[in-house]
């Protein structure tokens, strides 16, 4: 046996086979967790864990999809010598996106895996302060889990308010520092200067749960399911067309049609699927063979992101649905940045005029112009995400846009 294997206490634990990984323990309690996964290898050498994470290809599951190992390395290398300059790790379970429920389900059913990942991330970065930020229901579950073990007593729990941008990384830091979950202007990366000026890692709770599994079972095991560019498993929240926010664990790179079919959606009766949530993009029903991977989704302007799929049934008008979402997003601006506060409502209202029908043929170009005006001009990426969604609407529902401008809706036949 090599020394490497001896440093990882794998006990008699059999790595989960197939796609049921994160919920393989079957129950939220510590005994079930330990029986299925064994103890977290908290003594693992930082270099070894970082190497496994890099080889695993694990990316962030909060939306941005940033490589996990890079984030941890950045905080580790920015660390100073004192407690005041030691890194901070924050598990982010805020999930402000209304169409997402996977982080809540994960924290309620597998809190120990998230705590393991959080403690491992803390160990690997040399963090002296560890937080978990989420809604009250999720925190109650985490609190019960912490009470069952002795190594997680130091985890500070912070309650996240329930609105769209409350999970944005700088809003998370701001919430913990000041109690106000609003994004901040950032001139330096959080990994260099975040909470109280310390190097800070804000990592999605699902990402951390995967860290806990990679630390135990290694990168090769992680990659044994999924595709090359979307390895491992990924939690998906699927809703729409009669399905109310179902969470599944799916193999990476799953074709959209299979993911939708898995929750019982009839894919022959769909108009389009919104991939990546309200900051995501539409994929038309003709293209449901597309896989949930960055490579396949790129032409649509979408990303697997936080694994959100919203199906739009063919009895609905894509434009009308999009106006509702654009207005919602405009109302979720944290009201700090001029271009966002003014530009998002303006953009939503011009889109609404397109949908209302019979308007000027110049309206779609005005929507595009406003999208260009707001993009990149906020303290957070809310304007960018909203603009991306609106541009995707104009592109994927182009035929509907033309019909509406001509005073006719193909769906409602009015």
């Amino acid at each position, binding site marked *: 046996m090599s020394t490497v294997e001896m440093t990882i206490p794998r006990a008699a634990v059999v790595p989960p086979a197939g796609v049921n990984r994160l919920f393989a323990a079957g129950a939220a309690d510590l005994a079930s967790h330990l029986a299925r996964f064994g103890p977290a290898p908290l003594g693992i050498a930082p270099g070894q864990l970082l190497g496994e994470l890099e080889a695993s290809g694990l990316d962030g599951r909060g939306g941005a999809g*940033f490589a996990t190992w890079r*984030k941890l390395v*950045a905080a580790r290398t920015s660390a100073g010598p004192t407690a005041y300059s030691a890194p901070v790790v924050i598990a982010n379970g805020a999930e402000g996106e209304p169409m997402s429920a996977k982080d809540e389900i994960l924290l309620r059913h597998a809190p120990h895996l998230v705590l393991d990942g959080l403690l491992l991330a803390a160990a690997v970065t040399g963090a002296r302060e560890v937080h978990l930020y989420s809604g009250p229901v999720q925190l109650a579950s985490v609190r019960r889990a912490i009470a069952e073990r002795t190594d997680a007593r130091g985890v500070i729990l912070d309650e996240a308010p329930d609105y769209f941008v409350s999970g944005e*990384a700088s809003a998370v830091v701001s919430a913990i520092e000041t109690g106000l979950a609003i*994004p*901040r*202007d*950032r*001139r*330096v*990366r*959080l*990994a260099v200067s975040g909470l109280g000026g310390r190097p800070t890692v*804000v990592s999605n709770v699902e990402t951390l749960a995967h860290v806990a599994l990679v630390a135990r079972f290694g990168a090769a095991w992680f990659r044994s399911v999924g595709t090359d560019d979307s390895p491992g498993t990924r939690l998906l929240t699927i809703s729409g067309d009669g399905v109310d926010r179902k969470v599944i664990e799916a193999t990476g790179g799953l074709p959209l049609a299979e993911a939708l079919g898995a929750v019982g959606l009839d894919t022959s009766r769909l108009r389009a699927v919104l991939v990546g949530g309200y900051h995501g993009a539409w994929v038309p029903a003709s293209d449901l063979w597309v896989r949930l991977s960055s490579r396949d989704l790129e032409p649509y302007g979408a990303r697997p992101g936080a694994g959100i799929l919203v199906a739009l049934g063919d009895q609905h008008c894509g434009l009308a649905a999009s106006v509702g979402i654009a207005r919602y997003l405009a109302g979720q601006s944290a009201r*700090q*940045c*001029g*271009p*966002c506060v*003014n*530009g998002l409502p303006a953009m939503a209202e011009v889109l609404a005029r397109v949908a209302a029908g019979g308007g000027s043929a110049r309206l779609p170009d005005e929507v595009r112009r406003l999208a260009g*005006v707001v*993009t*990149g*001009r*906020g*303290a957070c990426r809310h304007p960018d995400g909203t603009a991306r969604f609106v541009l995707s609407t104009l592109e994927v529902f182009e035929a509907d846009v033309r019909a509406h401008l001509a005073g006719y809706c193909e769906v409602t036949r009015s």
Partner: protein
Amino acid sequence: MTRQSLHIDWTACDGRGLCTELLGPLLVRDEWGYPRAAGYGSDVPIPSSFVAEARDAVALCPRLALTLQEVRAPARS
């Protein structure tokens, strides 16, 4: 010579447009009065011929919303 970039803190800027007076036509006002440079967002590269004006804008911005920084990787995480 290091390249300079002007960072706009949108949470502070109130769009009164003093910077656009100093830095036009590099910076223009959008329809609500907020500074905008074609093709750029919160970080606007400043050509050397505009560095003096950019310094003035930083010093005179009533909301302290502007900073001049040396160009590095994008300041996001």
